[in-house]
């Protein structure tokens, strides 16, 4: 197939590769061009803002929802329990004996400054199960009295974690396999393409359920399996890019100069091949979050004492009167996924040269 036809086909599938600028090094100028185009898309920017906001929430979850106060004055001494808990976790600090295993809310201190949501997602309070949303529990509680708002805040960490790690795994596998297939061609390509076919033909969700239901639940297992079943799209894009770029002059030159295959692949070709892959990455994160919520909904894949958006939603299934258990985590999943999709689509449009200037 000639390069022209290939690019037409390629672009129909991945919505935008740089035809015509082949040969030029896609350096910083290129990405700032993309960024400028991206900025003009209002929806995409809105999505990006939300994504950024979610990051902040995830990173600072401990400061937004915690059962320990920021600052406490107790028996004459000042304490900063949240910071101290970080130190203890890292192994460099210790709790003073009077603060060991205590319930901070019940301590008789002079002043206590609690975070806006004074609960952690796993604080059980058997006296307030299924509480309606109220000033005490802004988004209500679940069957064991665990605060839903805290669950949503801390759940963002897990969702993002799952999203990123799964996609990280599929990115690694996909790029490596796609690069190998695209670069070497012939029998290597044939073999790897068979692998693509295999992965596409496997009923992935079914496979996921099988693995998640049968093995002891753990998020690592879930993430790995999601990652290992969703790399085909990335691999294909990478392969297509490699196929195109490989025939370009600068690559031929590099090979002629004796640069090793590995260097050519990963230092020369790959940086230029990444554009369509980025879109897949962003969309992949959203997809991973959706899959995790489906698994939690079925009650598999996540350990019992971990509170995730999907696990709260699962509870909502058997307790449908407790609408707050369904609405809020569902909303969180929805907004997150929507934001990532908007960013992904915006990126796709920004990368497409033919859409520029319209």
């Amino acid at each position, binding site marked *: 197939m000639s390069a022209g036809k290939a690019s037409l086909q390629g672009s129909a599938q991945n919505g935008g590769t740089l035809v015509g600028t082949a040969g030029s090094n896609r350096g910083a100028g290129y990405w700032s061009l993309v960024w400028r185009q991206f900025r003009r898309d209002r929806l995409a920017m809105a999505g990006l803002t939300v994504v950024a906001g979610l990051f902040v929430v995830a990173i600072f979850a401990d400061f937004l929802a915690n059962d320990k106060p920021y600052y406490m004055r107790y028996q004459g001494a000042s304490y900063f329990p949240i910071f101290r808990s970080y130190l203890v976790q890292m192994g460099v600090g210790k709790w003073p004996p009077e603060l060991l*295993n205590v319930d901070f809310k019940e301590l008789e201190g002079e002043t206590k400054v609690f975070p806006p949501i004074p609960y952690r997602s796993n604080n059980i309070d058997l*006296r307030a*199960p299924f509480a309606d949303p109220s000033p005490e529990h802004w988004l209500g509680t679940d069957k*064991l009295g665990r605060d839903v708002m805290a669950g949503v805040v801390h759940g963002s960490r897990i969702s993002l974690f799952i999203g990123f790690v799964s996609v990280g795994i599929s990115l690694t596998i996909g790029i490596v396999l796609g690069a190998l297939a695209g670069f070497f061609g012939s029998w290597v390509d044939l073999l790897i393409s068979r692998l693509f076919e295999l992965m596409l033909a496997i009923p992935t969700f079914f496979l996921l359920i099988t693995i998640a239901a049968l093995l002891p639940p753990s998020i690592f297992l879930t993430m790995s399996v999601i990652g290992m079943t969703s790399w085909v799209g990335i691999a294909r894009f990478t392969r297509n890019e490699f196929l195109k770029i490989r025939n370009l002059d600068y690559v031929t030159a590099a090979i002629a100069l004796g640069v090793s295959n590995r260097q050519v692949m990963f230092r020369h070709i790959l940086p230029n091949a990444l554009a369509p892959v980025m879109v897949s990455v962003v969309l992949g994160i959203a997809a991973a979050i959706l899959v995790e919520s489906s698994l939690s909904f079925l009650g598999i894949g996540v*350990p019992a004492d971990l509170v995730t958006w999907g696990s709260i939603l699962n509870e909502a299934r058997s307790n*449908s*009167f407790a609408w707050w258990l369904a609405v809020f985590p569902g909303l969180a999943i929805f907004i997150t996924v929507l934001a990532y999709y908007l960013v992904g689509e915006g990126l796709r449009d920004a990368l497409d040269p033919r859409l520029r200037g319209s």
Partner: protein
Amino acid sequence: MTMSWKKLSLVMCLAVSLTSGCKTRDRPSAGPGRSEGDWLLAHMLSDPEQLNPLTSNDAGASTVLGFIFQSLLTRDPRTLELKPLLAEARPVISENKLTYTFKIRRDALFQDGRPLTGEDVLFSLKAIKCPLVNAPFLRVYYDSVVDARLLDPFTIQFDTREPYFLNESVLGGIDVLPRHYYDPDDLLHNVTVPKLIGAEGSLSENVKRFAEQFNKNYTRKPLGSGPYRFFKWETGQEVILERHDAYWGMGKEGIDQPHLYLFRFRIINNMDAALVSLKSGGLDFMSLQPLQYLRQTGSKRFESEFAKYVYFSPGYTYIGWNNAHPIFRDKRVRQAMTYLTNREQMVKTVLFGLGQVVDSPIYYFRPEYDRSLKSTPYDPQKALELLREAGWADTDGDGLLDNVIDGKKTPFRFEIKFNSGNSTRSSVALTLQDELKRHGIAATVRQLDWTIFLDDVRNHKFDAMILGWSMSVNEPDAFQVWHSSQAANNGSNMIGYNNPRVDKILEAYRREFDPGKRIALYRAFQQILHDEQPYTFLFIGKAVSAVQRRFHGVEVLPSGGLRPIEWWVPLSEQKYTGRPEA
């Protein structure tokens, strides 16, 4: 195997009057002049796996088969006494308590019109005993029966291995299968019962052929002697039973008379969808989940259309401590754990008040239950005292208790295992974990798929586990769970409990035919158990059902829950008429 009446409801209980919130019907049930007709649309959570009475394993199948098959004896639902059904009278028991002779009624017929004779009873036993028939558990249950023979076409005699007071109940509970239907070529004719026992390798061709066709060909079309006949099974949709108009027991004294024309068990996998279906008229009768009962069925409209019934279900949930584990070997630790479990609060929150704390493995409403046991209260102080006594203290300031066991310093860390798909056990585990954290004990929870969990539990690969036992309201026999011999070979003594005194009591109990003496024996047994706390007994649950108000004769019975076979609908209120076509 088990009595047919037992299969009529999914849960059982005793002592209706003790249950709070129980709304029994105001109208008197009973009396002649009950009209026939109408259908009952009952809820079934999932398809029965299959409808072969011997090889089926699930509760759904039990319910359905309970209307189709009958046995020699049955339990009176109100007095719980054994009374004859297919037999003319209770059996004659030999002096040495080893031989039971039953006389069979002459007027009993199968649903295809053929008469029920001793041959069918003998066949039914042989089918159970045949090692190649896919019913290993049933076979174990009938292990005590070693031989059987026909003294005449309507008299059958059984030999049992050893004196055991429950043998009468066991023998009386054999579901009688029609030989001419389940073994048309009479392949088992020449095989005697002793030959079948343990004979796996050396069975004749006939037996092998029989087993193969029995296992495969009868999963979807049962035929028995009961008042309801199998009509249709639409997979994933419903199972339909229709009244056998030529039922042999029609109009006879002392036998349940079937009034309703049809039982339609609608299969709806999802409890929410089922409740929705109930409210919109798609179902007449279903079990409610606690929250559905408490929150979603209180509207005026619902109350005017449905009556709700609350009753105990015999079976308890417990935390099993691995008695061989270094930490839980010491009974003081186990006692402390029970003091740390706020069982009353769990009943209130986890069971929504629909339950009762228990302290012994015997069903709470049976005479054998020792009411004098003082229930262990929630008392963290007492628990900590006991732990200190046992040598536990936080010697290194890391927030965890530790102790020196077998010469090694051991922190108080352990893992609680339970199975996925069970919200109650999960809640118990998480609550316990939370509570223990506050006292310096680090418990991790591990939720496993059911089969994996069972595997681990049976092989004693756990520190602590949460599980339940479901029982019947009949006489208990704690041998299988508490005797030391049952700890090996994947037996039911999964915690590895071993107490020679208890062993002796359990053995003596089985041989005791006097109920009064049995009660005394079990009193002693429960006292020991209460002291040793090998399990932390948690609670028994209450079940709730909703029934459409047009059904009369609905009441909660001592035998356990509701018995739809007794229900009827006055002509003026009947909703469905006629019968569906095949």
